[in-house]
């Protein structure tokens, strides 16, 4: 009896040793096999490929992760996908609801049980890459994906392979909208006022309403540093330390001082609160404007109805010059799990789901901002206020990729310090020191 037990236990231990994300070897090989399958005939375009590309895969079983709101549309797309390839035998393609915010965590926890094709935001790319959980985009698709999607989205998903040092495209761009922008109540803030931060704050104060921008959360408060010129630019040679672009320190300090001055001048109007509060604020009538994320736009729009205004972030006046606020901006991608049992089909499906047609559907039905350049030019997208605001802000934004974990806390502290009661906006030395501390905290040099 004891012996049986011991063997059983030992067996389980070995089984667990093989599980997990560790199997890095086959990550690239599965990608490779699907590349090879493309062969010479493969010239994919428009989401459709030659059936030969499926290779010998049959009785295909796949799992797709989509956020809740997108599940029914994804199911519809998959039905269409199956119809496109009548000679391929699909056993079952499931769509499971999984919030994008947790996609990487869930995937890394147990890649064998995770989805084969999944949607994730750009900031999880490094994590997924480090865990070797992503199967790179098939060579057959690279050309088409690169040509049809906005350059920034493709660039952000291109990482250097740790071994070969070559650029590898790791995922299929899905959206170009994961950021924040200005929403305002047209009754309070006029379209003209919405162009400058000063104008917004004044209009809000005059109407005794609040303006919400979260200064304690690095995702939003990095706007201060970015606008000041301290823009991140990937990693240093060591692949760990955050790199900043060169910037003019005097100007950066002046910009931060301008922000702090407005915070002080409009104390009580400028509230540092979670953007999840913004829709409530509009509903209660306490809010005039706010910096809100694209994921909340439906609620904001519902609340304000015809008074809903959305535009890119405003400008701020620094030494008489209007400076555009620079924000953090991310994208969403469709990734293929490196552990998938049907790599060829998974890639073909991801390619289809990221295609122009699917992006068009998502823009119209879910309001997701497309990364596909053709879809961005369509009438529908052009006429959608929110999508236009997002698109405009994306021109003034830093991509949310290659960001070190130390970044968020340090940027949050920067915002909090400036928002603090005792902070003196005119104190040049203190502001300079604050900026230096922030940057050295991000670079973890403390």
């Amino acid at each position, binding site marked *: 009896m004891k012996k049986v037990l011991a063997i059983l236990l030992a067996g389980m231990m070995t*089984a*667990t040793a093989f*599980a997990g994300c560790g199997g890095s070897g086959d990550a690239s090989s599965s990608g490779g096999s699907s590349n090879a399958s493309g062969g010479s005939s493969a010239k994919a375009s428009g989401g459709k490929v030659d059936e030969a590309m499926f290779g010998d895969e049959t009785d295909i079983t796949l799992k797709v992760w989509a956020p809740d709101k997108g599940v029914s549309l994804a199911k519809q797309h998959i039905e269409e996908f199956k119809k496109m390839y009548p000679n391929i035998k699909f056993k079952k393609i499931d769509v499971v609801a999984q919030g994008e*915010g947790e996609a990487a965590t869930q995937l890394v926890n147990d890649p064998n049980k995770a989805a084969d094709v999944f949607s994730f935001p750009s900031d999880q790319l490094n994590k997924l890459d480090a865990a070797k959980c992503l199967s790179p985009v098939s060579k057959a698709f690279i050309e088409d994906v690169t040509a049809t999607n906005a350059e920034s989205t493709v660039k952000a998903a291109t990482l250097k392979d740790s071994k070969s040092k070559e650029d590898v495209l790791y995922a299929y761009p899905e959206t170009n909208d994961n950021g924040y922008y200005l929403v305002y109540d047209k009754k309070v803030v006029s379209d003209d006022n919405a162009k400058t931060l000063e104008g917004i704050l004044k209009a809000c104060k005059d109407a005794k309403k609040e303006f919400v921008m979260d200064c304690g959360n690095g995702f939003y408060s990095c706007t201060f540093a970015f606008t000041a010129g301290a823009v991140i630019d990937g990693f240093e040679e060591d692949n760990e330390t955050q790199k900043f672009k060169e910037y003019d320190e005097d100007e950066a300090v002046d910009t931060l001082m301008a922000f702090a001055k407005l915070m002080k001048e409009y104390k009580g109007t400028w509230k540092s609160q979670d953007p999840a509060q913004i829709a*409530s604020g509009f509903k209660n009538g306490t809010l005039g404007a706010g910096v809100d994320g694209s994921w909340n736009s439906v609620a904001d729009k519902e609340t304000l109805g015809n008074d809903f205004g959305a535009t890119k972030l405003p400008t701020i006046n620094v030494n008489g010059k209007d400076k555009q606020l620079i924000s953090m901006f991310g994208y969403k991608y469709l990734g293929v799990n490196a552990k998938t049992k049907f790599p060829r089909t998974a890639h073909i499906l991801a390619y289809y789901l990221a295609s122009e047609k699917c992006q068009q559907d998502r823009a119209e039905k879910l309001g997701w901002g497309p990364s596909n350049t053709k879809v961005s030019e369509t009438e529908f997208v052009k006429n959608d206020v929110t999508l236009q605001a997002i698109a405009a802000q994306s021109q003034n934004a830093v991509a949310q990729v290659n960001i070190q974990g130390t970044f968020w806390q340090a940027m949050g502290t920067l915002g909090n310090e400036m928002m603090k009661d005792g902070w003196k906006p005119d104190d040049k030395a203190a502001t300079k020191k604050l900026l230096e501390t922030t940057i050295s905290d991000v670079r973890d040099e403390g």
Partner: protein
Amino acid sequence: MIKSYKARRIISNTLIYIILAIMCLIWVSPFAYLLLHSFRGEGYVTVNYLIPHEFTFKNYIDLFLGTGGDASINFPRWFLNTLVVAIFSCVISTISVLAVSYSLSRLRFGARKKLMNVGMILGMFPGFMTMIAMYYLLDAMHLTRTLVALVICYSCGAGLGFQISKGFFDTIPRALDEAATIDGANKNQIFWKIILPMSKPIVVYTVLTSFIGPWCDFILAKIIMGDDRANYTVAIGLQAMTTNEFIQAYYKQYLAGSVCVAVPITILFLRMQKYYVEGVTAGGVKG
């Protein structure tokens, strides 16, 4: 300074009551907020006042009927899941805890002391240290993302928590066992017919603690369930409602859900309350 005893007493009592009232207010306010705002009709997420302007049952109705929401938020299902897991793990772990305690208290066998020490030491490791290992063991048995896995995790190690009930059994005179043995009862009969009827407080205590566990556990359930929303328990389900994706539409339902979770535990507690205190203190007399 103040001579009169009465005046001194009044002053000190007032002070004490003021302090207690403040502490009580602080302690009660989250619950009051939860309850009040679970009936709030207006607004989306939080509002900057305490008393809602508009009271409604809509949040509760929406929560249980799932009207106007996303398909994967299914609170009734989660509630049922948790209830089933709680009942099963409660029954299994109660029996196993009591059986272990009884045998350690009454039977004499080799390595008894050593086993008790090992149990004690194992109990000192924080539970989440083994969670990843547990996940992969369950995975090897193809049990992840199932409710069975939760029942196994919650109840199989329960026997290690024998200390308090063993202490209680130790206080029951051995003479009773001996008398029963003379009358022809075996150990099994003694346990069920003599000891258990006399140990109501400790049985109740064990039932309560093992029933509450599944309702409160978050980390383990989260790891085991992964993306299978249909098998979520209330703890992870409620957390899912507060993620970016859902918070706008579900915050008020989340508050309502938090109130509902308290219901089964409260009912069980009220019914068994009078034994509870007795059980905790009785076990501590002799360890």
